[in-house]
């Protein structure tokens, strides 16, 4: 698994303007035959990067993406729609992204991303439009303050589910919280029986 991400952090943005980027684009289904969650970065946007013969494409939308420098992905509306595969955030994290910004992020992807430390950030429409037009923008993400500051650009605060935020900052899995309520689960089962 990738190392926990610490906040705040700063990075340049990488922009994919396309709307409705589905999880089949993020990681094609034929790479889901793995039983591991590791090393999936090589399959991230695989068919956008490589042609049928496995050769790099000339019109690769990921060209110029060096996630050591550009670890914030800015994507068109409704990013991550489609299947529930958690392989999608696993692949993006392993590829080197640390946050995804769009003006809308699909439900299951958003939940999966947050559980793995890929911060899903929903931006207001106007700022999202600005970000799409300014690839390489210098972005500072502060999770505790729930703010995104853009050098020479607009800043905004974003919503995140409070418990997901808590788990991201503490680096804990929500499973611990569930396990701590085992008595309540037990009584619920007894009542329902």
């Amino acid at each position, binding site marked *: 698994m990738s190392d926990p991400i610490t906040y705040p952090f700063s990075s340049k943005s990488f922009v994919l303007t396309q709307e409705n980027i589905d999880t089949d684009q993020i990681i094609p289904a034929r790479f889901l*035959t793995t039983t591991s969650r590791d090393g999936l970065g090589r399959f991230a946007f695989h068919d956008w990067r490589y042609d049928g013969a496995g050769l790099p494409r000339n019109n690769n939308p990921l060209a110029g993406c060096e996630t050591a420098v550009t670890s914030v992905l800015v994507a068109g509306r409704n990013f991550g729609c489609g*299947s*529930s595969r958690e392989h999608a955030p696993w692949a993006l994290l392993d590829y080197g992204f640390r946050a995804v910004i769009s003006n809308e992020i*699909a439900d299951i992807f958003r939940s999966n991303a947050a559980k793995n430390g890929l911060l899903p950030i929903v931006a207001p429409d106007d700022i999202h439009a600005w970000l799409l037009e300014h690839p390489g923008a210098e972005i500072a993400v502060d999770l505790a303050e729930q703010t995104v500051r853009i050098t020479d650009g607009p800043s905004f605060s974003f919503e995140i589910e409070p418990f997901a935020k808590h788990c991201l900052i503490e680096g804990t899995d929500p*499973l611990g919280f569930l396990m701590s309520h085992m008595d309540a*689960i037990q009584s619920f089962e007894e009542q329902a029986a």
Partner: protein
Amino acid sequence: MSRSLFQKIWDSHQVRAETDDTPAILYIDLHLVHEVTSPQAFSLLDAQGLKVRRPDRALATIDHSTPTLPFRRGSPPPYASDANAAQVETLYANTSRHGIELHGWESEHRGVVHVMGPELGATQPGMTIVCGDSHTATHGAFGALAFGIGTTEVGHVLATQCLLQRKPKSMRVHLTGTPSAGVSAKDIILAIIAQIGIDGGTGHVIEYTGDAIGALDMDGRMTLCNMSIEAGARAGLIAPDETTFAWLKGRKRVPEGAAWEAQVERWKALKSDADAVFDRLVEIDVDGLTPMVTWGTAPDTGIEIGGTIPQPENASDTKAMEYMGFKPGEGISGARVDRVFIGSCTNSRISDLRAAADILRGRQVAPGVTALIVPGSVLVKRQAEEEGLDRIFTEAGAQWREAGCSMCIAMNGDKGAPGELIVSTSNRNFEGRQGPGVRTILASPAVAAAAAVTGCVTDPARLKEAEYV
């Protein structure tokens, strides 16, 4: 206070209500498991030394990675790759170690996970049902709250039988009018998605209502609820009625005798109160609806089969048209088809196969077209063979396969070739979904079968006319 069906199911499954700081703890009645999204969850349990809390509430099958080519009993299945085989073997090992019921190669209930659950009567009204699979809303057809989850959450349910969830918003999609004869649930859901959009249901649980819903049989209701995720919805459901109860009666996991009668009485209360409030209401007129087909690379690009490709509204539309090779203003009927796929959790049940057989009976698959027909489960396959549907298919020149997800997700070796145009009864037409470079048109079984016969996109109602020309 009056409540929606969704609210009632939610309330009765809350172990702990949500607070400002924490989501609700929601109890899960049934956890469906398959080989693709579960291995990493079992690994997590093993790494933490945890047991599966309620193995009796989990139910597993193999469907995504399994080959659909026939093979002799006792010989190894013809997996497309070692990785496919390893994934299936991993599920055998995990379910065996944790005592979970698995419907593997030897089971007559093996099949696509969303066909298997209902078939066993494991899917029941009022339940909470999850699966590491976005098409879990299929089970909403029975008035269950059923939704897809990620692998981390699969681990949570295995370990605790619960999930942490914020309550989604509610949405009612009410249909008015009567579709044309021969129009199926698939056409209706494609019309709904085309109207509300690929993200029209994001953050919501949809309840479908209206006479056109009540008129659907259970197979049709499953097709409809199945594609709720293609409008971005968390789940979709339909209140149970006599059609639901009649379909479930006598199935393996439902009670018998007096216990059945008592259960049905309880299920009858599972409907939205007359004055229930929904966060969003959408009314859709399906009067006179004709068969639907998609032109683009997202499931919300459905148009009526006699319609024309619309003008692009944005860069995504233009890109989709370039990929699909369609031009604005041209008709979609008549587009040349290379391959036809009839199957998937959307359309692989007996009614779907009967609809395809009605078209293929006494006709031939057009030269140059490959038609693949994949039943949803071993039992569906058996039923189809008892009815002689397999002979209709094979005599027409179509391939009759073993049960599985097959070319819907194209990870078992069944796939199209780059550039091919496929008419498919599955649920997603995303770029490359059915193989790199493959172009997919989503449609009903009748439309897919008609395309197989003529070799081009064809309204089944016009098939007979064409033969007399």
